[in-house]
């Protein structure tokens, strides 16, 4: 009698456990589904509203009436200009920093300080970078609203991304590569330059590409440093307007819905291409 009750209790609670598990797993599936569906909704709504307004003219013509009419040619060029400028500075510094952290530095207070600095820099919001860039580059160093002010501000912003990815990919190069090279009589730097770096290039490039993504999508840090004036910056000392800034101005001033969505579409397609490339590179790197 006693045994029977006990087993019925157990079977009841087993059912309850099964039911709980089912409910919980439905929630987990739902969380994942919501994440993906939100992404699809956002990307989809931009593409659906914008793709119809996209044309060769839009990409190759200059903006007219403050962006209400015409295209975004000089805006695309400014965006590329600014991305290349900040990468040209951030990539060598970031990669060198990563080499130092992985190959030279010994665990200790200096390393901890550098790591804390990099992490902190990564957590600083872009509006703070904007304020800093404005007061330091634009005003204090008298670089004015220019590609230089914008590019240098963005350099600080993307540096942590580049350092972190480069560090991870350098760490993944097998120790035996280094030992082989050193055994052949190469110096430490020769080993790094000729063996370690070539082996970690796809990983390093991923960080660089993610850096491009951040520059392309950035608004707050750019608008107060590179400015928002239309027209091609014909020197690095001239201001310019990037795609993200243009989109922000069109959206907040309600100038033109069609040009707003068309700009958003170009921006999101650029981001898609950047992410896709970064993903391919990571996969290639992991395989090798």
């Amino acid at each position: 009698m006693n045994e029977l009750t006990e087993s019925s209790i157990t079977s009841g609670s087993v059912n309850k456990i099964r039911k709980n598990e089912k409910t919980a797993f439905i929630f987990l599936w739902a969380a994942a589904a919501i994440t993906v569906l939100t992404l699809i909704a956002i990307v989809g709504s931009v593409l659906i509203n914008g793709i119809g307004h996209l044309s060769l003219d839009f990409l190759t013509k200059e903006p007219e009436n403050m962006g209400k009419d015409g295209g975004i040619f000089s805006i695309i060029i400014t965006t590329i200009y600014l991305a290349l400028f900040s990468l040209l500075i951030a990539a060598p510094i970031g990669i060198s920093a990563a080499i130092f952290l992985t190959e030279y530095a010994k665990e200790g207070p200096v390393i901890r300080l550098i790591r804390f600095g990099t992490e902190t820099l990564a957590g600083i919001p872009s509006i703070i970078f904007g304020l800093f860039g404005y007061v330091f580059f634009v005003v204090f160093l008298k670089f004015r609203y220019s590609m230089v002010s914008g590019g240098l501000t963005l350099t600080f912003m993307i540096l942590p991304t580049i350092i972190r990815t480069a560090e991870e990919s350098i760490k993944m190069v097998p120790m035996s590569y280094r030992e082989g090279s050193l055994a052949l009589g190469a110096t430490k730097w020769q080993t790094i330059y000729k063996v370690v770096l070539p082996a970690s290039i796809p990983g390093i490039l991923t960080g660089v590409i993610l850096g491009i993504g951040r520059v392309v999508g950035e608004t707050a840090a750019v608008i107060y440093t590179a400015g928002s004036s239309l027209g091609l910056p014909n020197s690095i000392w001239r201001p310019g307007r990037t795609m993200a800034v243009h989109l922000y101005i069109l959206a907040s001033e309600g100038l033109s819905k069609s040009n707003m969505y068309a700009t958003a579409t170009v921006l999101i397609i650029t981001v898609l291409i950047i992410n896709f490339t970064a993903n391919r590179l990571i996969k290639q790197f992991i395989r090798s």
Partner: protein
Amino acid sequence: MKAYERVIQLVLFISAIIAVFGVILISYFIISEGYPVIRKVGLLDFLSGNRWAPTQGVYGIYPMIVGSLLVTAGALVLGVPIGIGCAIFLAELAKPRIAGILRPGIELLAGIPSVIYGLYGLAVIVPFIRKVFNNQGFSVLAGSIVLAVMILPTIINVSESAIRSVPRDYKEASLSLGSSHWQSIKNVIVPAARSGITAAVILGMGRAIGETMAVIMIVGNSPLVPESILSPVRTLTGNIGIEMGYAGGEHQKALFATGIVLFVFIMLLNIAAHLIPKKAGE
């Protein structure tokens, strides 16, 4: 040859400390620009002042502090359960094929620029709230919904790696004692990954407080303490972002002072996240 190697090592070292140098430079310039206003107004009055009227030289950022905290709290309420759920799903349930779709999706979510989030909020979320609640639509709620999505990648990625760092033995021991998979997740794996998940939430909070452009586009920006989650609100970031375009003189310095408060919030969150061990057993 030896000298050459030394020069290289020095160059690499200098590159490595540039990030630290950057943090010092940023802190110094933001503080030296904003501090005079805080000193003039008085720290307490600046933080607890209810009125922001730059044309009259009145600078109180209390409404913006409340605004930032409210919008962020809302984002966490919506984003944390979904984010942690998604992280558990990825670490424990997802088959490689499904993870292969989900993971790039999350990366893309992290890569979408804030203006695009703002545009989506402006074009979809705000009108939706306007229709359902019959108000102006620009509100705390709109901001929280959009920020919840924006902080998902941070929460998911950091939580997932925390969950994955829980030693396999824990789960196997729990299963072999007769626990179901869910019981093992709930009673063993998640508790073991607790500190990493906490760090994930703190980092997500930092992102939400620091977000500017998307928030400006959807919360209405009136510098008043909101009456409800359906009222318009202005955040600390919004206060800077909206007025930097035209502010000059003392007004501009007051925006840098707002920046100091924001910076302190972010630094506290960063330090907290830094101090918490992110992996189980550390």
